[in-house]
């Protein structure tokens, strides 16, 4: 009796209600009987398993705390004055909450340079992100659906370059662009980031798996040209892949620091990542002598929030991108 209830119990607990054959059930029963010392008592969670269960949640909790605490700390810090930062506990408010004063101070300092950084970051990310993804989509569509001279060469070069990080190219780029007199312009930051071998690699995979060749051929026989086929057939099918690639490209440009740091010298052209570092260096600046910690931390929080919101709302897309092998840091 006890052993059959055990098996039934197990069957109803399992989420997939697959039917087990007799052989499996017998085996299961034999093992469980052996485990329970042959006395036939129902076995739910053994004490070791209970301890493991608690341990599991404890480790998970520690990991979550590790990931969250710095962000919570940043949120609290943005509510404090420069003095409050040093005189209050890191994970609680100071005596006075000056969050809005900090925001205003950050946005009005030096004729609103922070606002310019924010706009620059957005402009660079949108132009380079959308541009690189669009170019990669065009090429990916062609490689997946057409045969032409140079197709295999392009495929090979892409495979070679897809895992080479852009930082390797940064100094050569700077040398070339400074020779051409193109440094100190936003173009020097945008143009190099339009080239995205990893994005092309992703788009080729997406195009090859999601565009049925027979459909393209049928349209071609009906007299549609490649332009019509792209907009009417390929792009709608590629939309999820497009969004995923775009998202990763946007994050890549948003996070880029090396390229704008070396290319730009006018503070008003900087993106946020480089700009905030300028404020960090103000301690050594003869005019200020003080590092505006409250502005830096509030500015950091404001820079992070849009990305956190984007990630939360676009979960579906980047998660599908991750499982399709979209890995880039």
């Amino acid at each position, binding site marked *: 009796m006890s052993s059959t209830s055990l098996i039934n119990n197990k069957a109803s607990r399992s989420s997939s209600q697959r039917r087990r054959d007799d052989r499996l059930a017998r085996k299961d029963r034999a093992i469980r009987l052996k485990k329970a010392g042959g006395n036939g008592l129902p076995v739910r969670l053994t004490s070791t398993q209970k301890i493991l269960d608690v341990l599991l949640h404890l480790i998970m909790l520690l990991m979550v705390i590790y990931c969250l605490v710095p962000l919570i700390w940043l949120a609290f810090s943005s509510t404090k004055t420069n003095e409050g930062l040093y005189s209050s506990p890191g994970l609680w408010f100071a005596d006075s909450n000056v969050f809005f004063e900090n925001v205003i101070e950050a946005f009005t300092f030096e004729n609103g340079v922070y606002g310019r950084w924010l706009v620059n970051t957005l402009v660079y990310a949108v132009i380079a992100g959308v541009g690189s993804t669009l170019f990669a989509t065009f090429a990916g569509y062609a490689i997946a659906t*057409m*045969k032409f001279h140079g197709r295999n060469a392009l495929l*090979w070069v892409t495979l070679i370059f897809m895992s080479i*990080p852009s930082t*390797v190219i940064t100094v050569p780029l700077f040398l070339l662009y400074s020779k051409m007199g193109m440094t100190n312009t936003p173009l020097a930051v945008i143009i*190099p980031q*339009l080239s995205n071998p990893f994005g092309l690699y992703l788009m080729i995979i997406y195009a090859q798996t999601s565009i049925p060749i027979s459909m393209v051929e049928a349209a071609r026989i009906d007299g549609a040209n490649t332009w019509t086929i792209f907009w009417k057939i390929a792009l709608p099918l590629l939309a999820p892949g497009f969004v995923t690639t775009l998202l990763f490209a946007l994050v890549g440009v948003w996070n880029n620091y090396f390229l704008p740091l070396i290319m730009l010298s006018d503070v008003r052209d900087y993106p946020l990542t*480089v700009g905030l570092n300028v404020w960090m260096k103000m301690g050594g600046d003869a005019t200020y002598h003080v590092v505006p910690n409250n502005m830096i931390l509030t500015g950091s929080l404001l820079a992070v929030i849009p990305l956190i919101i984007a990630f939360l709302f676009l979960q579906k897309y980047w998660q599908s991108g991750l*499982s399709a092998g979209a890995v880039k840091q």
Partner: protein
Amino acid sequence: MSTAVVASDGVVSPQAPSEASPRKERLQHIGMIWCLPYVIVFLGGTIIPMIYAFYLGLFKEQMIGGERFAGMTNFIRAIKDPLLWNGFNRVAIYAIIEVPLMTFLSLLAALMLDSQRIRHVAIPRILLFLPYAVPNVIAALMWSYIYGRDYGLFGQVFALFHAQAPNMISKELMLWAMINISIWVSMGYNTLIYYSSLKALPEELYESARVDGASEFRIAWSIKIPQIRSSVVMTILFNIIYSLQLFNTPSMMQTIAPEVVTSYYTPNLYTYSLAFSGNDLNYAAAVSLVVGLFTMIIISVVKMLGNRWEEK
């Protein structure tokens, strides 16, 4: 041929159009037009700069008479440069610590999320990922405040136990400070890659092992991890690349600890200093190419080892 390479590199194995349509196709030259925008930016953004850097590296600036052709002198000097090797050494140590630690923690987190034992699994899943939304430089900036011994969060936590916090931005601990920042930013990201690979596994694979009474650890070690090894290889590869190319975090840390983070702290920081100070652009070009070449060699070796493991 090319298809095989794509398949071994990616999680999804794609079909080449040649396989999808066995009929002899006529060439569509218009395909080149579709690739043109990409090819132009790729040439301008990657290939031409590299060729130009190589060209620059062949010359030497002289006190009198401008530039002189110097052959491979700059490149040989770069390969022998002790400052460059100092940087390589440091990022190698960094990678040897960071990559296994990151892989272990992310795998552990992913397996725990996948074990079906964690309640409300969606919540820790998204919370672990949140730090990835923080740009690396801003993460370094935040942590440099948190590391503060006297007033930072670190100092406050240690003060609870009436202890003095270790100086994380000292010469001895700086590498650990940077490893921590990198793990904080990317652990959740790696976890999600593993987790989504685990989710893609058919449950039949380990259901019978579970019925046979295999422990969850045993299932994880003998079934789950071997099944997702292509994801593991990929993340290890990217983590190694990232370690070799370390720039953002040390560049940021240089602001608060200039005496610890030298101008040659990592190979990339070194090429940056050489190029930006502008004293010897020819040499800077040569060093940047040597760094790039070295990175490519390491990438190929790791890829080869990874492929071997995957084929097992």
